[in-house]
């Protein structure tokens, strides 16, 4: 095929050559011109050197013409005077005539017809270097000598080629070859004299793969999420991003930028959206990931600077509030109305919080339920008729410790109102024993449960105080049924009359057993015994008169209120009593142990001699009951009783070291008619200026008392708003602190009301049981409490303090308000903040704050 055109050219050229030759030979020896060689064709842009020989003349000069144009033209090709033909850069005409003409005889010439052939293309670059399998790919071939009609061949297969220029061709290629195969690319210029270029190779790659990361993700509203798209098997890693098919997304479903940064919408559109990345290189390749939209983490940025107890309504601002968000204050729900994601209006009633601070919290529900950080707000009493400091002190004196609730109530109604409520409150109950073997452990638990939770706080405090005057002890009466009847007497008579209390105690089988008035027989000369003096002595020394004569202001006066003979006479007057008969049994001397009701008299066991007690005559021959009544009347009327009882009760409630005037005022209340009214006495004690809780408060630096362990424990727990299960096991703790509840070592109580500090002589009864061992027990108890690890169903809401603990100073201030009436000194505060701040662990911050506050002498001692 390729040679045939060449023959054709020759056959057409030959007759002409023959004609010209014959003409020349008809003359003289004609000039003869020959032309060598005779190529059949020349490729465009190539050079070809022709050689002409002129004979028979000396003039050898020739002219060179192309298609009769001397020297040729750019489109025909040019030829130099020496016969060097330069083919045109491309084939404009398939055939040219190269003519050489003698200058000597211009008739003499030779013509050679030559074909102009397309050049052999040269490929310098094929791009891209690689091609994805099955992907229709635009190929750009660069090089030179591309002829119009040139075709790009890929592995011998011609492609529909676009001729851009002699240096650039383009075509589309889709290959099915296996990845890794090298595709041979060349350019074939068309006929005339079609020829293949050099070969360049393209590598076949696997199809493009797009992978979006993260594959699935939760994104909170308004939050940003960076997505990445990995594009494999191409160097073109560009993708286009869309959300739910919308390129770049929009405000409703969230937007995504070219770099894949997604911004979630502010309001939940639907639970999920689709994020898609499409390969720009191969738009058929894409990856999609599902975004689960979650509610934002709400943030409160502004709320009222303070709230008040009771009803409140206010607005909060912030970010990320879900439409269905709820709101809590100190864990209690308040009614919240959603305005928009940055604003809510709130209303509801607020309980007085622990430590004077509450925390607001916005709770976004599912999807992605999330709570805001705690937003602390001080809560002030809605109504306060007295200062918090005075009210706290009053409740430390008059109750088992202030709770946030009891403090608020007192602030509302004042001391007199509070006392009236207390006098009317239903008494706490001790349950009946399960059986006779039940131990005092149960009574201890009932005691602490009542103290920590009962509404009749003052009655219980009074019963506890009276029980430390009229002491009985589990050391000798270790069973519940032995002890509980007398404890019920103390509760019943707490606001009664001291004389009635003396009567009930004297006839109590519990006391009778403990101090041996029970079964105390009249003297028996035959057997050589006399009445037991135990109850007679202790009722004078410890329950009514004491060892010294006293002035109405408690000053010791010369002389003693009673003699050994008075002890003996009182013992005689109190003979003849035995246990009450157990129901169903006949009463006899002596009845077996039975602790309910009052002891019963047997006249034949009662001493009926004439007696003289404290200088007053008790005529002989009377009944045991008559002697007892008169004897107790005589004792009760002794002027020592008022100051004796007053001092002891003041010490239990207010201060170890009352002034003479204070004792005198309380004595007056005791002595006023009707003498011995304990309701009047306790009112006088608690409302006295020296108690420091009302107008005209007098507070001396020696005022106050060390909190005895039982009171220390209850005050700490109530001040921390602890909740209590049915069996608070605090007795073992107070035992370590030196006060085993209901187990006073002897009738002299856990400590003596007359104890004075050895170093200074200052009266301080409770200090008698404070020593290095019990001091450590007290701080170790605080440590357990700070960790909320007291057990026994006691739960201290330490999490409330944790909600404030992000700020050490706020935390310490709340603990200050809870435990120190808000009066913590600056140096102490700074020291505790320092210790709290060493850790970011909120639990330990709270623990250290509570520990360091409650171990301080300013908390150990109530002043």
């Amino acid at each position, binding site marked *: 095929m390729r040679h045939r055109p060449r023959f054709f050219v020759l056959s057409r050229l030959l007759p002409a050559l023959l004609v010209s030759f014959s003409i020349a030979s008809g003359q003289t020896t004609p000039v003869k011109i020959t032309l060598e060689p005779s190529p059949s064709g020349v490729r465009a842009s190539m050079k070809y050197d022709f050689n002409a020989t002129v004979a028979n003349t000396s003039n050898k000069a020739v002219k060179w013409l192309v298609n009769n144009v001397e020297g040729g033209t750019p489109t025909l090709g040019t030829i130099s005077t020496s016969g060097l033909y330069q083919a045109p850069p491309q084939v404009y005409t398939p055939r040219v005539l190269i003519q050489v003409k003698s200058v000597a005889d211009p008739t003499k010439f030779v013509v050679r017809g030559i074909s102009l052939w397309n050049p052999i293309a040269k490929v310098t670059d094929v791009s891209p270097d690689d091609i994805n399998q099955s992907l229709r790919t635009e190929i750009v071939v660069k090089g030179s000598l591309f002829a119009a009609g040139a075709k790009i061949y890929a592995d011998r297969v011609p492609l529909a080629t676009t001729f851009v220029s002699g240096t650039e061709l383009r075509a589309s290629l889709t290959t099915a070859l296996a990845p890794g195969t090298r595709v041979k690319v060349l350019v074939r210029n068309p006929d005339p004299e079609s020829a293949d270029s050099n070969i360049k190779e393209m590598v076949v790659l696997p199809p493009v793969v797009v992978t979006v990361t993260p594959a699935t993700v939760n994104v909170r509203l308004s939050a940003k999420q960076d997505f990445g798209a990995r594009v494999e098997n191409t160097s073109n890693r560009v993708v286009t991003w869309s959300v739910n098919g919308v390129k770049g997304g929009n405000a409703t479903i969230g937007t995504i930028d070219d770099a894949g940064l997604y911004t979630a919408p502010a309001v939940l559109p639907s639970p999920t959206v689709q994020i898609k990345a499409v390969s720009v290189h191969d738009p058929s390749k894409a990856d999609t990931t599902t975004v689960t939209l979650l509610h934002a983490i709400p943030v409160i940025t502004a709320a009222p600077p303070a709230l008040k107890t009771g009803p409140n309504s206010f607005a909060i601002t912030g970010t990320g509030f879900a439409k269905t968000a709820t709101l809590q204050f100190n864990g209690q729900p308040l009614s919240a109305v959603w305005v928009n994601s940055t604003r809510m209006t709130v209303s509801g009633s607020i309980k007085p919080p622990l430590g004077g601070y509450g925390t607001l919290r916005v709770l976004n529900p599912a999807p992605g339920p999330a709570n805001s950080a705690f937003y602390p707000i001080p809560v002030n009493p809605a109504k306060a008729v007295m200062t918090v400091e005075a009210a706290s002190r009053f409740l430390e004196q008059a109750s088992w410790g202030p709770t946030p609730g009891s403090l608020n109530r007192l602030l509302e109604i004042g001391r007199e109102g509070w006392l009236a409520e207390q006098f009317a409150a239903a008494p706490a109950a001790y349950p009946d024993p399960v059986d006779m073997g039940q131990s005092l452990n149960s009574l201890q638990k009932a005691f602490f449960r009542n103290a920590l939770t009962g509404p009749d706080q003052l009655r219980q405090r009074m019963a506890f105080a009276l029980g430390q005057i009229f002491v009985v002890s589990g*050391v000798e009466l270790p069973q519940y049924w032995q002890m509980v009847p007398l404890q019920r007497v103390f509760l019943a008579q707490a606001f009664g009359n001291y004389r009635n209390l003396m009567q009930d105690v004297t006839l109590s089988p519990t006391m009778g057993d403990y101090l*041996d008035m029970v*079964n*105390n*027989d009249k*003297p028996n000369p035959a*057997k*050589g*015994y*006399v*009445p*037991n*003096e*135990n109850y007679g*002595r202790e009722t004078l020394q410890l329950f009514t008169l004491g*060892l010294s004569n006293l002035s109405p202001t408690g000053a010791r006066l010369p002389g003693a209120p009673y003699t050994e003979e008075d*002890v003996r006479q009182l013992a005689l007057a109190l003979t003849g009593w035995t246990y009450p008969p157990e129901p169903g049994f006949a009463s006899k001397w002596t009845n077996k142990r039975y602790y309910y009701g009052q002891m019963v008299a047997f006249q034949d066991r009662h001493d009926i001699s004439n007696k003289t007690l404290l200088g007053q005559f008790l005529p002989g021959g009377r009944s045991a009951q008559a002697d007892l009544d008169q004897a107790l009347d005589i004792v009760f009327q002794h002027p020592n009783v008022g100051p004796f009882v007053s001092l002891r009760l003041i010490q239990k409630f207010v201060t170890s070291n009352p002034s003479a005037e204070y004792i005198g005022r309380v004595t007056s209340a005791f002595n006023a008619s009707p003498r011995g009214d304990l309701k009047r006495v306790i009112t006088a004690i608690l409302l006295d200026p020296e108690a420091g809780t009302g107008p005209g408060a007098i507070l001396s*630096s*020696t005022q106050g008392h*060390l909190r005895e362990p039982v009171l220390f424990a209850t005050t700490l727990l109530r001040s921390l708003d602890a909740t209590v299960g049915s069996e608070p096991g605090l007795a073992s703790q107070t035992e*370590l602190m030196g006060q085993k509840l209901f187990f006073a070592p*002897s*009738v*002299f109580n856990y400590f003596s009301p007359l104890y*004075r500090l*050895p*170093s200074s*002589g*200052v009266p301080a009864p409770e*200090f008698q*049981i*404070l*020593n*290095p*061992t*019990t*001091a*450590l027990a007290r*701080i*170790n108890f605080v*440590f*357990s409490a700070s*960790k909320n690890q007291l057990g026994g169903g006691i739960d201290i809401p330490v999490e409330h303090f944790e909600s404030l603990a992000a700020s050490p100073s706020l935390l310490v201030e709340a603990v200050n308000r809870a435990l120190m009436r808000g009066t913590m*000194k600056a140096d*102490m505060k700074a*020291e*505790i903040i*320092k210790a709290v701040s*060493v*850790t970011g662990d909120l639990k*330990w911050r709270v623990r*250290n704050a509570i520990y*360091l506050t409650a*171990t*301080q*002498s*300013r908390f*150990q*001692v109530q*002043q």
Partner: protein
Amino acid sequence: MKKNRIDFAQSRREFLLKSGRLVSTIGAAATLAPFGAVNALAQSGDDYKAIICIFNFGGNDANNMIVPMGPNYAAYQRIRGSLALPEASLLSTPTSKGEAFGLHASLAPIHPLYAGKKLALIANVGMLVKPLTREQYRSGAIPAPNNLFSHSDQQQQWQNASPLTPATTGWAGRVADRVQGFNAPSNFPPAVAVNGNSLQLIGQETRPTTIGGEDFGIAGNDHTVISDARQASLQEMLKFDSGVVLFQTANRILSDAVAVSKQVEDATRGAAALTTAFPGTGLGRQLAQVARIIQVRQALGMKRQIFFVSQGGFDTHSAQLGMHAGLMTELSQAMLAFYNATAEMGIADKVVTFTESEFNRTFQPNGNVGSDHAWGTHTLVLGGGVLGGDMYGSFPTQALQGPSDSGDRGNWIPTMSLDQYGATMAQWFGVNPLDLGLVFPNLANFTKKTVGFLPGT
């Protein structure tokens, strides 16, 4: 107080320099006592001494602890009536004068130590201002102690040796004041109570401590950054001076507690347990604790230690016999175990254990098979160095309204003062005889200052 200690250490060094003697630390301590004077008897080689008071709270019925036998038993039996112990039950303790006495049967554990001459019996000791007869008492010619028969007052008087005026220091504390130089430079408290505060141990210069159970220490002190910060701040705030005595006192006690707990923790770390077993009674546990502290005396740097333990429940107004037998059992078992522990430590002859009780009980019973508050009592003294196997003092005449009875129920007027009883131990312990009157203000009223149951007294 600290200052005194430092001053004393200073003077001791000066003394050593002046005397120019080369002495070991132990020898130096032994040669020195406060103010340069010391009882020569304290100057032995391995110088350590301890006295341990066991206080029987409630008024021990000593009439049934030490009982006359032989010819004197009949009077006892007749008057004691329902409370009389059978003669056959008594454990014989004949005196050097040939008098027949017997111990309560429940004292069996320590009875052999009487024959072994480690246990001495002290007869009719009690609170006195001056020697006193029945007639002098009844006429009021010579003052008697205040508030006889009152538990609280008599407990205080036995501890402060001050029968007429209140005193806030105790006689053992005043002894500690005078022997504290032996312990220099240790600042560990010389007097230790185990079961609560004790007036007896409070000195004018020295301050006692209490070391309760084995878990004596600060909870949560695990030396993390958090606990270290907590403890540092606690101690820092204990230094804040409020100027308020109740705060100051509470702070001082807690400061002592922190310091002592650290010393005890350091001293007892790694100490091997004694092999002597103690009874699991209240008194047994207390004396076990005393033994543990004595065991680490060298780590604590102690040469003279005073301890106070107690046993309650002696106020036996009714149903006395069984209760008292139980109390005697607890007492004797604990005393024996403690004696054995001191023997195990090789210091039995350096440790003296003695009993106290605020008063005896009426010799005549009451109608409840019990007895009431009385006066002069009997006590026990036990130790390897005790001149035991004998009775000291004079036993009361067992007769109601007799010469020994202050009233009509057998309330014995003491014939030995607490002052003499305590001074005997104080002198043995190292108090200069010339200083005994500073410890026992009424000792001057008695001819014999000490009563001989310890060497050199």
